[in-house]
């Protein structure tokens, strides 16, 4: 075991996989000699050579397209898109191609690519470095979407994603790269070393895709969250005094329906938290699933706490960012009914 930040854990996942499988390579803007703008690929080029971890032109569509071709050959490319905000030029290749190649070829071709990308707010990144586009990938059949919330899960989920034979969108909450963050921006920054999930095995292990984790058991209300919002939800529950059961979804496609249903049937209440804008956000899907599967167990309307339906406004980072106060308010509303 070692103590790792999320950056180190992700780096370790790629290191382990490159060591084990010569077909795993890493490519993206600035990922080679420099090691990535967030240092996630640091040292990989030096250790494995130029052809296994290399820089690409600034052309996200081209990066994903070439990765698809490599995947069809039998390579497992791990692609970095520097910010999730830059992923849109690759959207056609992801949606029309990566997600469809297995289906449209009747299973003849497939595309085992992992597309890593830092996402989410809380870093004063403005509208082009803070977005949470997970729902537009979740909506696409043929893509899996994974979002870790801590170093241990990040490594195990990234290894599972690289080993998966289908395309995986792997969104990394960049606010969590160097430490957990519960939304209390006014408080001192906490390093990962003070968090139990920073204990990470140095070797190979897997956190399976599609499995949620109950990070706090409780009986009053189920709180569904992923990424940075897991930490915000935990803080809100602790501060509210309400006995919330916090579930870290970890994978949003395929989502762990059994864990969600079991918890909501137990608590009878549900609050959904995400950073992304509300309309047609993944919370809408979660809300629908809870309603379809748990309607007769619900004792209050489902609440969503989300980003506002606006672009991410730079000057208003903490007014926009979903913090514990907004989650507490939602918890209190569902407990009134």
């Amino acid at each position, binding site marked *: 075991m070692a103590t790792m930040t999320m950056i180190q854990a992700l780096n370790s996942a790629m290191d382990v996989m490159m060591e084990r499988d010569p077909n795993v390579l890493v490519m993206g803007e600035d990922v080679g000699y420099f090691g990535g703008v967030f240092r996630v690929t640091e040292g990989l080029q030096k250790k494995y050579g130029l052809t296994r971890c290399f820089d690409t032109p600034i052309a996200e569509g081209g990066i994903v397209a070439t990765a698809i071709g490599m995947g069809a050959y039998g390579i497992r490319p791990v692609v970095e898109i520097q910010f999730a905000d830059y992923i849109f030029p690759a959207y056609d290749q992801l949606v029309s191609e990566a997600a469809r190649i297995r289906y449209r070829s009747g299973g003849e071709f*497939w595309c085992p690519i992992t597309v890593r990308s830092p996402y989410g707010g809380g870093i004063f990144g403005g509208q082009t470095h803070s977005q949470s586009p997970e729902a537009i990938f979740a909506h696409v059949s043929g893509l899996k979407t994974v979002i870790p919330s801590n170093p241990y899960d990040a490594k195990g989920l990234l290894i599972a994603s690289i080993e998966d034979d289908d395309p995986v969108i792997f969104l990394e909450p960049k606010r969590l790269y160097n430490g957990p963050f519960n939304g209390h921006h006014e408080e001192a920054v906490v390093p990962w070393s003070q968090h139990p999930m920073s204990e990470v095995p140095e070797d190979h292990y897997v956190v399976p895709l599609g499995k949620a984790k109950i990070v706090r058991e409780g009986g009053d209300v189920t709180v569904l969250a992923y990424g940075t919002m897991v930490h915000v939800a935990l803080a809100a529950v602790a501060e509210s005094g309400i006995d919330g059961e916090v579930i870290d979804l970890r994978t949003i496609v395929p989502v762990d329906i059994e864990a969600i249903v079991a918890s909501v049937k137990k608590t009878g209440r549900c609050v959904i938290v995400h950073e992304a804008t509300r309309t047609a956000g993944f919370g809408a899907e979660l809300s629908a699933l809870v309603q379809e599967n748990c309607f007769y167990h619900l004792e209050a309307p489902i609440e969503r706490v989300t980003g506002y339906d606006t672009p991410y406004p730079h000057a208003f980072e903490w007014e926009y960012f979903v913090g514990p106060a907004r989650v507490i308010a939602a918890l209190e509303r569902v407990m009134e009914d």
Partner: protein
Amino acid sequence: MGHMIRNEPSLSLHIPQPKCRPGDRVDFSTLDLPAAGEARRPDVDTHPDEMHDMAYGLIRVLDDEGRAVGPWDPKLDGQTLRKGLRNMLLTRIFDDRMYRAQRQGKTSFYMKCTGEEAISCAQSLVLHHDDMCFPTYRQQGMLISRGYPIVDMMNQIYNNARDPLKGHQLPILYSARDYGFFTISGNLGTQFPQAVGWAMASAYKGDSRIASAYIGDGSTATMDFHHALTFAAVYRAPVLLNIVNNQWAISSFQGIAGGEATTFAARAIGYGLPALRVDGNDFLAVHAATEWAAERARSNRGATVIEFYTYRVAGHSTSDDPSKYRPADEAEKWPLGDPIERLKQHLIVRGEWSQEDHQALEAELDAEVRAAAKEAESIGTLGKSMPSPKAIFEHVFKEPDWRHIRQRQEAGI
């Protein structure tokens, strides 16, 4: 606020227009078509900077009398040429048959490659069986040349119980991994950079396989085209980047894609890639240019951009009506002729073929296509037979997740 009045001419917006529209007299007199044999043949290791002229010329081997002339003559034996002729003819007969099948309501959609057969059929003779082609929907000649069963092409077109793609795909968007034929997208251009990635993977592994990608003149405007050229140049990928310039993108003439200002082959120059511009209706020229580019790729010298200059004789698809936007006799007036007629003439000039041989071959291939159609239609045409509906939920992922299992149960399948 008003505009300032200046003593300058008014600006005007240029909208490219083709020379001829329906009712006009077809005029190809302004096309600059160098004579057969005129183009030089640079060595395969020539630096791209020293062959810019090749992007503006036209490699032609067959002259008007059907003789092979000049440095690009691939010097193929009669047997190889007859094989190429057979594949082109089979492709055309297959196209005609399936076009009629669509008109008879046996399927929803079809696309012919009439006039463009030389490109895929000649290339198939050069490329190895395990090289991967990333085709558009007009490279069926490649599948036919590589010996894919035409009855399975028909089963796919009919989406019947033996459709190899299990009913998942629009007619003619084939996939044949074992025949080096990548799944056709239907979204234009996307395969071009994927081929570069495939070629990069071959180089990464230290293998010897190369990729061959196809794109139309219209789709050279996509970002995918530019991604492909950028990545191919940067990583020196062993790939052939073939532009099939058939003059028309549905109803838009090639000027709408930027063909008025320069050639499509010339796009390569800015990327530092070598370019060849080739008479796409000349089987020998296509063969020779492909050999040049394949040898270059296999010797680790990277990608070549090849513009095949040809003409789309048929409509874009069965949903198109070209008489609405171009003169009806434009195809027959195409100055570079028909690829099948030209290769046939060449073989006759060489004394290795005759009119009788040709008619006999036509009859034989017609019977072959007829027999395959009978077999496919005995299984069923579109809607009369279909793969198991279970297939709806298969191959989304390697294994279905709970949604697919649950939705299949809800559908009662």
